[in-house]
């Protein structure tokens, strides 16, 4: 039996094959490196970076949102408290104002009444005085007339003088 192959054939590099391999590989390397592998890897790197950045940005935005949310909640709570307080204040003020007004009007009314009373009193007194004066004058007139009548005679006059002296 004769074998046409020999083991050395297998482990002896064929120059022509090596030449084509070198040529093919170098062309492959240059073209693929320039037009495919390098741009693809660069693009993947850029995309990875973008994804990382965006994840980070999203995380930051979330944290910011959380802080804004709590801030807003605080503001809301404060506003609510403020409103309540203002309402209470307003109510109290109204009450005070009402009370003050009431007091004031009461006082005014009292003052008016007092004034009226005083007026009435003085008017009354004046009227009484007037009446008194009138009555006095009238009495004097009457008395004059009576005296005139009675003293037309000297008897009467003497009698009266006596009587008055007696009375005094």
């Amino acid at each position, binding site marked *: *039996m004769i074998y*046409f192959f020999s083991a050395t054939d297998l482990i002896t*590099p064929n120059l*022509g*094959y090596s030449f084509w*391999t070198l040529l093919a*590989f170098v062309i492959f*390397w240059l073209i693929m490196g320039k*037009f495919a*592998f390098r741009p693809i890897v660069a693009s993947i790197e850029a995309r990875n970076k973008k994804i990382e950045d965006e994840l980070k940005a999203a995380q930051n935005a979330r944290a910011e949102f959380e802080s804004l949310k709590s801030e807003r909640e605080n503001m809301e709570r404060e506003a609510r408290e403020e409103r309540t307080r203002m309402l209470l204040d307003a109510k109290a003020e109204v009450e005070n104002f009402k009370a003050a007004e009431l007091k004031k009007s009461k006082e005014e009314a009292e003052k008016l009444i007092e004034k009226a009373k005083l007026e009435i009193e003085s008017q009354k007194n004046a009227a009484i005085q007037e009446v008194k004066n009138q009555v006095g004058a009238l009495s004097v007139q009457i008395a004059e007339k009576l005296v005139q009548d009675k003293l037309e005679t000297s008897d009467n006059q003497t009698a009266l003088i006596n009587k008055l002296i007696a009375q005094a």
Partner: protein
Amino acid sequence: MRLQTLLITLFLTIYSSNLFSTNSVNVDSSNTEAVQHDGAYDPVETIMHHVQDAHEFPIIGDLALPLPIIIYNKTKGTFFTALSSAFHPHHGTSNKIIDGYKYEHEHIASVDNDSLIDLSITKNVFGMFLGMIVVFVIMFSIRKHYKEGNNNAPKGLQGFIEPLIQFVAHDIAKQNIGKNYLKFVPYLMSVFFFILINNLLGLIPIFPGSANVTGNIGFTLVLAFLSFLMINIFAKKDYWGHIFAMPGVPKPVLFLLTPLEIIGIFIKPIALMLRLFGNIIGGHITILSIASLVFILGQVGKSFSGALAGGVIAVPLLIFVNAMELFVAFLQAYVFTLLTSIFIGIAQEEHHHEGHH
């Protein structure tokens, strides 16, 4: 790889059993037709024919794709070109002589024993070009998805290729080389995809696959040599410092260590070359050996029951070995790229020796 060793042992068993079973066959060395028609089946011859290069690409039966033969005659200083079909070869041999060249056992030889350089586009070269074109088409079809500003999630073919690209760029290159890794990415990716596609095409048992492109020492030699250049050309000062004068080692020891380190520079790429070659050719031989069982037990069509038994044994084994080879195709592309990255990483490293003041 213990499994593979086991399978190669199996192949050797078949090989030796064949030696004993065919010693009664009379072979006329000048007429290979006789071997075929005698009914003897020679698995070693068949397998070696399949794992080695050829000047034509068999399609089915006697139909083969003729390939261009390009010969440079060193003695005469002339070129000879022809299509392999001009020789009308049969099983790698032709009786025809053209311009003083004969076609024998898949080799072109000169009748005058001139010294020749065979630059033919052989089956392996053809397969290699095909693999290259496949990668070109794939990469250029997904390239548009990586236009600037396009940050969409990968889809379709891109979704299959991108993990491989990411794997080579990040898990192999970046992990082992460090900050300078981008400079080496095109080379490492070219190596990875070039080996991977040719490994995979080699596993397709029919035309236009099956060419044993990566399981050829001429191929691995070139890639190992380029890796050797990539490792050493861009090496940093510290790398050479460690080779010629390992810091912290006494002078007398350096006499022993430095030669070893210098040998190491060359051993690394040689190991790369032999590993890929051995693994891929081993896989091809294993698959062919198992397939040969059908013909050995069937005694080339004489025994139907033998062929049936061979098939029953061979088919599950073939499925298993093919699946394993599919894994090996990826693994070996990975290992070659990984080791190249590790060696480049070592050469790129800049040490800061604490304690050596």
